[in-house]
């Protein structure tokens, strides 16, 4: 796969890698076909994602998309984050062949899952 410079940059210099100890929205999703995993931990305050961290296991596109989504959503309004699509993640890593775009889908799925968990815990509060 002829990976782009943007893609390689995400691999060589992953953005926002790790986990937040004070996260209030955490999700880990697995691609059932290939077993790739993405974990996002978010600190959300006043309708905005203040901080985002990612952990990823799997093929390089999964690592790059994890880095890209963690970078994009930090500082973003929650409503805007909820509207993100896989195409914005694909663009952020400089494009992906169609057979690798499931990595961007996993990133979006994990983000939505994390946001969903925040909503649940807030309702309980």
């Amino acid at each position, binding site marked *: 796969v002829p990976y782009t410079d943007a893609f390689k940059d995400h*691999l060589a210099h*992953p953005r926002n890698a*790790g986990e937040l100890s*004070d996260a209030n929205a955490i999700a880990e999703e697995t691609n059932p076909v290939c077993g790739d995993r*993405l974990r996002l931990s978010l*600190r959300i305050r006043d309708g905005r994602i203040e901080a985002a961290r*990612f952990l990823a*296991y799997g093929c390089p596109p999964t690592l790059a998309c994890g880095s890209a989504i963690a970078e994009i959503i930090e500082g973003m309004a929650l409503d805007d984050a909820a509207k993100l699509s896989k195409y914005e993640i694909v663009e952020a890593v400089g494009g992906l062949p169609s057979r690798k775009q499931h990595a961007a889908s996993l990133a979006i799925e994990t983000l939505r899952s994390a946001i969903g968990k925040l909503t649940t815990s807030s309702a309980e509060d």
Partner: protein
Amino acid sequence: MLTPSASRNKPGVGSRFSDARTEISVVMRKVYLDHSATTPIDSRVLEAMLPYLTEKFGNASSVHGFGQEARAAVDRARRQVASLIGARANEIVFTSGGTEANNLAIRGVCEAAEIHGRHVITSAIEHPSVRGVIDQLEKDGWEITRLPVYDDGIVRIDDVRAAIRRDTILISVMMANNEIGTIQPVMEIGELVHEERKRGHRHLWLHTDAVQAAGRLSIDVQTLGCDLLSMSAHKIYAPKGTGALFIRRGVRLLPQQVGGHQERERRAGTESVANVVAFGIAAELTQKEMNERNDHARRLRDRFENEVESQINDIVFNGNREQRLSHVSNISFRFIEGEGLLIHLDMQGVAVSTGSACSSGTLEPSPVIRALGRDEELARGAIRFSFGKDNTDEEVDYAVAALTTAVESLRALSPLRVQSAEFGVRS
């Protein structure tokens, strides 16, 4: 000297891995550790083949002087390649490579002998160019027995013996595996086939894919007892695009490519004279230098493995570490995936491979590593390092440093390692 370096991750608010090394610097240095995939052309080989790309351009089938010059060169190369494996020159058929040699051997023999039976025995870890042909035979109604290789990656002779039936016409077991380098008991299988023939099982043939082994192991087809043996030029410092199949005198096979009289009617098509010349010279050089090359590769490989073992934990060596080719090391790294590690190493200029080089575009974990009984995580995290005659100690040290950095970087990102660490704390 440029060395792989790691800078500290930007300290994030509450980041668990604020001290983790997750960045690598990109350098331009190149270290090639993928000699099982292909080798560079030896300068002596290139020099020998060049005239056959320029002034000595004749077609080896032509009657005139240009043709005779080419024919003489092809015949000389045939003797050189035959000598590498202790065969007669007329038992060597040049092909377009190892894949074609495997196709010709398996299909050719099966089609010629199917009147005597439709059962084939093979191993679970064959190269895709054997596996694919045999899978196709199975779809066509042939019965296939795939021998297990246990956790050390080696076929057991008792399993071969138990698998032989009256309608078995072919056993195809590779001489050495392309991913983990394990050497298979082909000579013992040859003895078994010989015993079977003495008992009246006349239509039983033994093929071995020696693409990785030829030029690295001392081979004598008389001692080995095989009837067909596949080789490839580009694994021994000659160009890609040429291979050979040894076909023992008396073995009948149907050609798979027809429309010409070349190669004694067994493989039609104008000989690639320059490539064949290169293969011949490469075979001769390999034969002369085999011990020296093996000693060098083994020393580098052992240096590499000792260093990796001392610097990186949670690793598993794949395959029997004694009964294997001298230049191959296959290691699984827990918590990370091989392709990510390959790209990280590539960004530091170190070329390695994951899975079989021919199938690294697929998402499947390596079938070879899976056949050893490894779990999916270990199968996905397997990397092959293969050393060559021109690698140096200094390159090995650079590769170890690059590998250490890449493994640390990827593990710092891995949720599998985090879960493992959490489990460790709780217990």
